[in-house]
């Protein structure tokens, strides 16, 4: 087993190195031409075509950015750490607000077939709406760009949690609920002591899906309203057609998304049980 893991790791590393090697080799800028004429400088150098920067350039740029992640050079120029913190703050605020509503509501829907039937049409219509489609309306009603971004996160992360909670609660084994009833537990106690632990793995799966979606959406939302955040950072560098920074921020977005997912995966493990 250990040797299989070892082999897999080695193979991953090898693939990475080959990939980076090809990328580096294909995108070598021509030898730095010194002594450009004024005309050539105005035309952006003698190089005929813009190219994707090689990985060595991206890494050296990443090193520069990461060695000073919290600098603040004015309202439109902040370090990558600050931008990520802004995005995380928006994601977590919207996400927690969604959880506060989705989980209790999911319980109600899961426990009551009547509520399930009554609310289902609304959920089915609202769920497929792209969260960004809400943005113009949110800006108009909330009259605050920060609030609108958080609202968009809220609205996109609420559905997986709501649906998974309802599903988990509705599918708790009836034997267990019957046992609770024979012990004369109140409905509230049944909900907390029996249904919640039983449905927890499904609920957490919903929460894990939600955080993934929220992190996907925040980048697009911030590109739209601008100001701060990792989405704004990507947009700002896109303005400058600075692919070094764009590739670097793509990597950072992936890294943070992975950390968020791993955190919820770890929590899911805590509530897992065997039948």
């Amino acid at each position, binding site marked *: 087993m250990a040797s299989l893991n070892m082999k897999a790791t080695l193979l991953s590393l090898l693939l990475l190195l080959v990939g980076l090697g090809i990328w580096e080799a294909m995108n070598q800028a021509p030898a730095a031409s010194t002594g450009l004429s*004024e*005309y050539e*400088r*105005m*035309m*952006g150098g003698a190089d*005929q*075509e*813009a190219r994707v920067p090689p990985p060595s350039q991206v890494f050296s740029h990443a090193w520069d950015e990461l060695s000073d992640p919290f600098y603040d*050079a*004015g*309202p*439109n*120029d902040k370090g990558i750490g600050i931008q990520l913190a802004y995005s995380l703050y928006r994601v977590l605020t919207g996400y927690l607000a969604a959880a506060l509503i989705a989980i209790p509501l999911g319980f109600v829907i899961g426990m009551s077939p009547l509520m399930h039937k009554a609310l289902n049409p609304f959920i089915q219509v609202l769920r497929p709406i792209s969260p960004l489609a809400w943005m*113009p309306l949110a*800006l*108009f009603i909330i*009259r*605050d*760009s920060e609030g609108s971004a958080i609202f968009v996160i809220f609205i996109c992360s609420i559905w997986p949690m709501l649906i998974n909670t309802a599903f988990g609660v509705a599918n708790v084994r009836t034997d267990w609920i019957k046992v609770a009833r024979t012990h004369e537990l109140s409905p509230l106690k049944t909900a907390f002591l029996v249904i919640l632990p039983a449905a927890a793995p499904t609920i957490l799966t919903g929460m894990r899906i939600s955080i993934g979606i929220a992190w996907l959406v925040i980048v697009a939302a911030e*590109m*739209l*309203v*601008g*100001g701060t955040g990792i989405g*704004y950072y990507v*947009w*700002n*560098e*896109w*303005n*400058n*057609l600075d692919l070094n920074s764009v590739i670097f921020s793509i990597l950072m977005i992936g890294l943070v998304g992975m950390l968020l997912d791993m955190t919820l995966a770890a929590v899911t493990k805590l509530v897992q049980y065997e039948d």
Partner: protein
Amino acid sequence: MATKSLGNPFDADTSLTHTNDCSCRLCQAESVNPGGLSDDQRLALLEQQAEQGEGHSQSAKAGGMSFDSSDDLLDRAVESAIVRGVFGHNDTSRRNFIRLMGGGTLATVLGSMIPLEKVKAAVKESMGPLEKTKLKVGFVPITCATPIIMAQPMGFYAKYGLDVDVIKTAGWAVARDMSLNGEYDASHMLTPMPLAMSMGAGSTATPYIMPAVENINGQAIVLHNKHKDKRDPKQWKGFKFGVPFDYSMHNFLLRYYVAEHGLDPDQDIQIRVVPPPEMVANLRAGNLDGYLSPDPFNQRAVFEKIGFLHILTKDIWEGHPCCAFACSQKFATEMPNTYAALFRAIVDATHFSAKAENREEIARAISPKNYLNQPEVVVRQVLTGRYVDGLEEKIYDVPDRIDFDPFPWHSMAVWILTQMKRWGYISGDVDYKKIAEQVYVASETGKVMEELGYTPPATTYKKHIIMGKTFDYNEPEEYINSFAIKRV
């Protein structure tokens, strides 16, 4: 609050000609030699400086002098003005006098001759205390916004006691919504926007005013390099063009230009709204065949070897307005003093930007990430008008490629309204002059220009010539009817 040129006038060691945190060689040397420099040393330093071509701009780091309140700042400004006046604006004689007699003596003597406290009070009364000093002003990262942007790093807002954050905005729709929300106190807009917003075209009707135009000229039609052989607009059928916003001079000028060449802008070409910063990426991707967009994105397309400059908009309408500084009527009424200070800072900054000798310094100040986030060489080509067009291997010199003039001509507003009607953005009877005069507050702009020592024009209407055709502001309806291609 970093404040330019407000050193203590009663101090012999302070120069009043340079900013107090000036980085020029002279000031640097003086700050390390508190005893002062000999005349020979001074001369040597000045010569060195001239050779290196250095200026005495404020260092990028904010700092220097702070005042506890805007009142203190005004006090200092008044003292400084009087002391300068007494010495005939000769800083050397002022400093020599104070070295001999002491600053205190000068203050006492002046105090006995001029009722300083009364002068200060009178100045404050005419200005009034600022209702709010911390402001947010939005801008879209283009060179048209130059005065709004550079007023921050170059200290024009601070000079009028304001602490302004200039906030970069992703596009015009967002700038409009942020202004309507009240998140921005004032914003960089396109000259047609406050007209459209006040009339409720494309948004809820909110009374907006436009105290100042930012730039005139300074736009261009860019085409993709693959169209180098299609320089005649008649060959543009089926082209996809980008403009920054529906209610923009770019849209109206592009429509006017192709219509004059016989193409119907709604049928023969496609016009899409693309935020300026995304123009170059879309051109590269082949999503657009060309665009009429603000700089630096025209020059950036040349710099990236993706496109070429087909025509500068100054060759379509010499002196056309483009971007503007605008705020809600509410802001101007509720905070008259703040509004007045902001207004003055903008007019002042616009005039500073208009001077060709300041352009290189401005290009340096607004290119960094916090502002335009563009290579300086691109911004410099736009602002100085010494540029390449991506077609021929030569350098052009067009100093008025972009220019800055704050005066909001009412006749320009009437022209914009005629085009809005021509292309069906507004319909019905339009009281052209009434709307123009309500939104473009030209008489106020004239007053402010006069106070700051500039000469405003005597009238607010004039005739404009666009592609050889004269626009008579007295006959807007006849003007619209004179076009063959229109939507009315």
